[in-house]
């Protein structure tokens, strides 16, 4: 604001007596300040620039504005905003692409005196544009008001050239008499307002909206009075249900038999449809309504038609009553989306028991039927209900996969399962019916067998360990309680000395042995270590002659061999 910026000169010659614009000049002793609070105000095709004076005392101040498109270096004169005395100017004659970025600047001028520029950041005309108040034409009918909203701005609007079929209209309506109770509805440009009381004055106002964020200016308030109700009332509460491959259209008509004192003859109905998009296109769509097959001159408050009558799209349906002479006004137009009405068919489910006490479930798409025009290729999720046949405890899970397993079940038990398909979406909570229930028994448990095998293996591996431990124990016990009569091993060494060695040692006196050998054909005399007298020997030998045959000791047998050798030596 108020920054002095060096700027390129405007296209034509600057005002006389000036050389460099943009600099605050002190002439006549006054410094002009640049305009304040400059804003761009655009409504439809009207572009207005507004600002405030910042030098109220100085008279004869005029203002000039310039513009520059992005990519262009030169500042061009803003048409309609050159040397204006007021604080607004209209530059609607500017021929510019509404989606192009543009920069504006403005300054105050007084004679040769100029203020610094006030710059406005670059913007597009479209983003600053507001939707102007629409024009509304009203007609009152039996308990309804027909509205006709004309597009804001001129027909060949530059601003809304691309958006003429994109506007939505928001309507506020209230009874003129009572204070509160405003109703807000979203309407098409040619639409009706229903459920009004007869002989009442209603007032309304409308604004246009454009996604994502443009809200227009409200129109002025229009008021109209509804006439006396005298025509045949229209059907109410139209709804559409789907079943298999047909649609059932139902409505209410509570005025059937007796009303106002005289009986009514048989009332017939007819239903019509229209493509909803026709309401968005400029032009009259009233001639484009078409008959729904099977819904002409029906006597009941419902009619049935095939689903493949309507392809994917959004439609409007209306119903009219007729009693032969007169026809009612058309009912409220119900919007209906053929896609949302599709019937999801229940899936086909199969179940198999597997070896490890679990059940594997397969879900497949339902059987293809004829007459399926509506696109059914949605990503589906399945809700599966799973329970034990005997108990009532159900387990509900949601799965996206079509092949999964329930594991960790009880062996030899029967389980049952059923599933349904879902399209889950915030706005569209649609599910199919449940499939058939399938039951299957689980296989006998393998767990006991595995435990057995494990036990056996463990036993096998533990046997050597046990044997070793037992052996150790026995050795301990026998050592303590049953000592062996074996001489200790150290003594053993003496007996296990080689004979040659002993032979050598015979020469020494200590080791000589005196033996008397008594020859006996049957006996072998034993050798003794002792150096006893002959008597003893005699005794001993007579004793030993009996036993000698029985001796089996190692050392003594060794000894006996030795004695034999002695015998041989002495005899030689």
């Amino acid at each position, binding site marked *: 604001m108020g920054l002095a910026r060096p700027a390129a000169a405007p296209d034509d010659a600057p005002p006389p007596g000036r050389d460099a614009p943009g600099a605050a000049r002190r002439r006549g002793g006054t410094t002009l300040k640049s305009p304040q609070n400059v804003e761009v105000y655009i409504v439809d095709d009207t572009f207005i620039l507004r600002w405030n004076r910042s030098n109220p005392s100085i008279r004869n101040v005029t203002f000039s504005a310039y513009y520059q498109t992005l990519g262009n270096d030169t500042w061009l004169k803003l048409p309609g905003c050159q040397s204006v005395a007021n604080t607004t100017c209209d530059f609607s004659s500017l021929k510019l*692409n509404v*989606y*192009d970025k543009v920069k504006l600047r403005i300054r105050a001028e007084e004679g040769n005196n100029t203020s610094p520029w006030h710059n406005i950041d670059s913007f*597009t005309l*479209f*983003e600053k544009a507001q939707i102007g108040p629409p024009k509304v034409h009203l007609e009152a009918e039996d308990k309804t008001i027909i509205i006709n909203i004309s597009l804001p701005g001129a027909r060949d609007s530059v601003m809304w*050239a*691309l*958006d*003429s*079929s*994109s506007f939505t209209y928001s309507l506020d309506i209230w009874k003129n008499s009572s204070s509160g109770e405003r109703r807000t509805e979203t309407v098409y440009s040619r639409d009706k307002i229903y459920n009004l009381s007869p002989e009442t004055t209603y007032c309304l106002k409308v604004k246009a909206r454009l*996604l*994502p*964020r443009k809200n227009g200016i409200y129109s002025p308030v229009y008021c109209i009075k509804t006439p006396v109700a005298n025509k045949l009332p229209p059907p109410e509460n139209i709804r559409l249900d789907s079943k298999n491959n047909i649609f059932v259209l139902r409505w209410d008509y509570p005025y059937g038999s007796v009303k106002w004192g005289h009986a009514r003859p048989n009332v017939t109905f007819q239903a019509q449809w229209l*493509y*909803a*998009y026709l309401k*968005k*296109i400029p032009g009259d769509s009233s001639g484009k309504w078409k008959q729904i097959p099977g819904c002409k001159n029906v006597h009941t408050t419902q009619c049935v038609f095939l689903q493949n009558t309507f*392809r*994917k*799209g*959004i439609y409007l349906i209306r119903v009219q009553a007729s009693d032969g002479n007169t026809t009612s006004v058309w009912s409220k137009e119900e919007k209906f*989306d053929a*896609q949302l009405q599709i019937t999801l068919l229940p899936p086909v489910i199969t179940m198999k028991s597997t070896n490890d006490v679990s059940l594997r479930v397969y879900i497949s798409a339902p059987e293809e039927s004829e007459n399926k025009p509506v*696109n059914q*290729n*949605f*990503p589906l*999720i399945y809700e599966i209900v799973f329970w034990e046949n005997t108990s009532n405890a159900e387990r509900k899970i949601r799965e*996206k996969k079509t092949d999964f397993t329930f594991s960790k079940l009880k062996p030899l038990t029967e389980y049952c399962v059923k599933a349904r398909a879902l*399209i*889950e*979406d*915030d*706005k*569209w909570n649609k599910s199919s019916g449940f499939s058939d229930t399938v039951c299957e028994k689980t296989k006998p448990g393998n767990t006991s067998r595995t435990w057995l095998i494990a036990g056996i293996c463990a036993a096998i591996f533990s046997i050597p360990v046990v044997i070793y431990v037992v052996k150790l124990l026995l050795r301990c016990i026998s050592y303590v309680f049953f000592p062996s009569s074996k001489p200790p091993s150290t003594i053993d060494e003496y007996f296990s000395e080689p004979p040659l060695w002993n032979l050598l040692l015979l020469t020494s006196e200590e080791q000589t042995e005196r033996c008397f050998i008594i020859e006996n054909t049957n006996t072998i005399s034993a050798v003794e270590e002792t150096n006893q007298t002959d008597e003893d020997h005699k005794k001993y030998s007579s004793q030993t002659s009996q036993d000698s045959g029985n001796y089996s000791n190692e050392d003594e047998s060794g000894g006996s061999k030795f004695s034999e050798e002695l015998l041989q030596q002495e005899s030689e």
Partner: protein
Amino acid sequence: MTSRCILQTTLLLYFSTMALAMSNDLLRSQLSSSSLECQELLLQLNGTTEYCLKDRINFEIPEEIEKSRQFQKEDIILITHEMFQKIFDIFRRNISRTGWNETTVENLLVKLHWQKEHLEIILEDVKEKENFTWDNRTLLHLKKYYLRIVQYLKAKEYSICAWTIVQAEICRNFFFLNILTDYLQN
């Protein structure tokens, strides 16, 4: 206590991301099938005639769409909504000089309108989110691009050649739209 809290939070996050993923999938499958159907219908309209080659023009589709850089989910919804809306706005105009089958054009408009309405419903929700900055630049470039097409049609007085050129250009649009739709997959 905390471990249970953590478990619950983890489960909540898991399921909520699953839920988001699922509705993304649904939108993506809807957009894909809409795009395919519209392309098929477009191709059913009578093809080009040789002498229209001189009417060719480069409409300069925005670079962001052509190069298909990765957008956020909300931006994709905004951009695809804008494209469907503008294509609808183009084909509702005067086609009397083309000799095209009116039923085919009608079906095309029905499908474009259907997809546009569905995107609008989502857009109303997305709009409520604060702290979201729209990619206004891409939107602006798109609007300029479609304005060029409409101005071209007006200038050529909706001739058959002009419409044929525009038909080819819109086919290209659907090609890029398909790529954009794929980015909805997380």
